[in-house]
């Protein structure tokens, strides 16, 4: 078994990490650097601290391993049919819409949808304090790791969901610099959003 090529990464605070090429290439930024010929020397990442780089490597390593696993088992292709099945089940359309066909009930049991293990792992991974979460989203943006960016953005969005404006300001320490008149004006402009 041929030994895998290792890539050396250096964080902003001087910590050195050696990772497999496949793992490093989860970052499009690093991938391009490798393609440009910088893969044989230490790749400096001045925008990422060692602490965050460690976590990012953990994330990429896990996901590369999961992808490998999938390839080996040749489990069903990434297209998941049950997503479509949700829609195909007759939606509760009001009587107005003519139902042209008599259909037998689509068997929902047909293809079991189990929550995937990697989703649970991801949820655990991103269950960190806000400070770390922000560092992760900024770093994953710089390193161009789509999956991690999506995960951290979703986590931050989850903190904003269904909260009042005041609550959101408090959670994120946003200073309200509107005058009461200005605030009232904006509320009226987008009144539908504030009902």
């Amino acid at each position, binding site marked *: 078994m041929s030994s895998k090529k290792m890539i050396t990464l250096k964080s902003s605070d001087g910590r050195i990490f050696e990772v497999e090429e496949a793992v490093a290439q989860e970052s499009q930024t690093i991938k391009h650097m490798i393609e440009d010929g910088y893969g044989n020397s230490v790749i400096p990442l001045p925008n990422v601290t060692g602490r965050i780089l460690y976590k990012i490597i953990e994330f990429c390593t896990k996901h590369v391993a999961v992808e490998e696993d999938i390839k080996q088992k040749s489990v069903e292709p990434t297209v998941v049919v049950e997503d*479509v099945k949700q829609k195909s089940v007759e939606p509760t359309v009001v009587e107005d*819409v003519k139902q042209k*066909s008599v*259909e037998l009930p689509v068997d929902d049991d047909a293809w079991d949808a189990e929550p995937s293990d990697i989703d649970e792992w991801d949820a655990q991974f991103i269950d960190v304090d806000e400070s770390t979460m922000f560092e992760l989203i900024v770093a994953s943006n710089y390193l161009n790791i789509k999956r991690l960016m999506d995960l951290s953005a979703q986590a931050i969005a*989850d903190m*904003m969901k269904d909260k009042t404006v005041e609550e959101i*300001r408090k959670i994120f320490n946003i200073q309200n610099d509107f005058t009461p008149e200005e605030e009232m004006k904006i509320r009226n402009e987008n009144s539908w959003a504030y009902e």
Partner: protein
Amino acid sequence: MKQREPPKIPFSMEMEVDKISNLPGHIIDKILSYLSLRDAVRTSILSTKWRYKWITLPHLVFDNQCALLSSQDQIAIKNKLVNIVDHVLLLHTGPIQKFKLSHRDLQGVSDIDRWILYLSRGTAKEFILEIWKGHRYKLPASLFSCQKLFHLELFNCLLKPPPTFNGFVGLKSLDLQHITMEQDVFEHLISSCPLLERLTLMNFDGFSLLNIHAPNLQFFDIGGVFDDVDFENTYRLSIVSIGLYGNVGYDENIPFGSPGNLIKFFSHLPSIQRLEIQSYFLKYLAVGKIPGRLPNPCIELNFLSVRINFYDIEETSAALCLLRSSPNLQELEILARPEEQPIVYEALDLQGEDPYSCPFNQLYNIKIASISGVKCELDFIKFLLASSPMLEKMTVKPSSNDRGWELMKELLRFRRASVQAEVIYVDP
């Protein structure tokens, strides 16, 4: 994703800094894209910096969450929704990648034409329109000039493209449900979208011949009433789910020597991996000549789900032919179609079936459901158990407990080719 609670630890010194407001614009866009449009627009009041952060949202989704309407007055609701969409579109700037309009109370009003016209001037990649009430909404010609579309999803619409329409060059995914269009429009649409990979068609009218010419098609999900399915050039098609929702009588005058539907159907599906045969589709497949095996085996097929009428000898023959032609099948699901037991019916003789001649060497999971426990069903189960040396689990779920005990007694008795096999009876 589970909703995150704000931290229960007291805020540390570090937390007093506002880290979010200074994030780059596209990161904010990304975060806001995970919120409903309503929540995203509400951020405009967080601080002066946030006033116009939402207006570059690449995805605009107008659905039930947008307007919490308590009124029952249709006119009021319509006016309110139209106002919201107009307002948002006017304030919005930058490319709109995804536009979805799906509010339960919005009927096919002409304002939609105006919004589609606006979108057609841009570079929209995804367009989803669901009209939940009222008549089929006739799509305006401008929709057909959205040449950047890669995903188009329509519910309760009528498609009549202008004569100048020459397909969507970039379209990869098409989802049409409860739609009306004519036969030639349908064929032209499919064949003029060369990159099409996913096609979903549910409950359609206006056409009944499914001529599918799509060289890149990988996923095909269809449920409706149709007369014929004809695949051509679909060598990449790997996932197919077909439900024929009507028990249409078939013309028995098929020219002698022509291949039956079964052979015809599979002749253009060399890459099929997952197949669902629903409702009456097996009956359609059983029309015409049913060979013992298909001329070309389905070597890629690893998952098969079939709805079958066990009282129909043609259907059982067709199912058997398919099974014999799928040497690499891993998971099998058999669902009985609830039919009246005919007074006289001819059952397939499975006793003569030699289980060693075509063992299912990869089949590890079998699910049987909706059966009544009659002999023809039991014979089939017996055959499966005897032919599956790698079986790990068989689950049997009858439609009712009426013959439960009898069924269980028989199941217990059947010889199993696999010593590992668990046979599990599930209460209906």
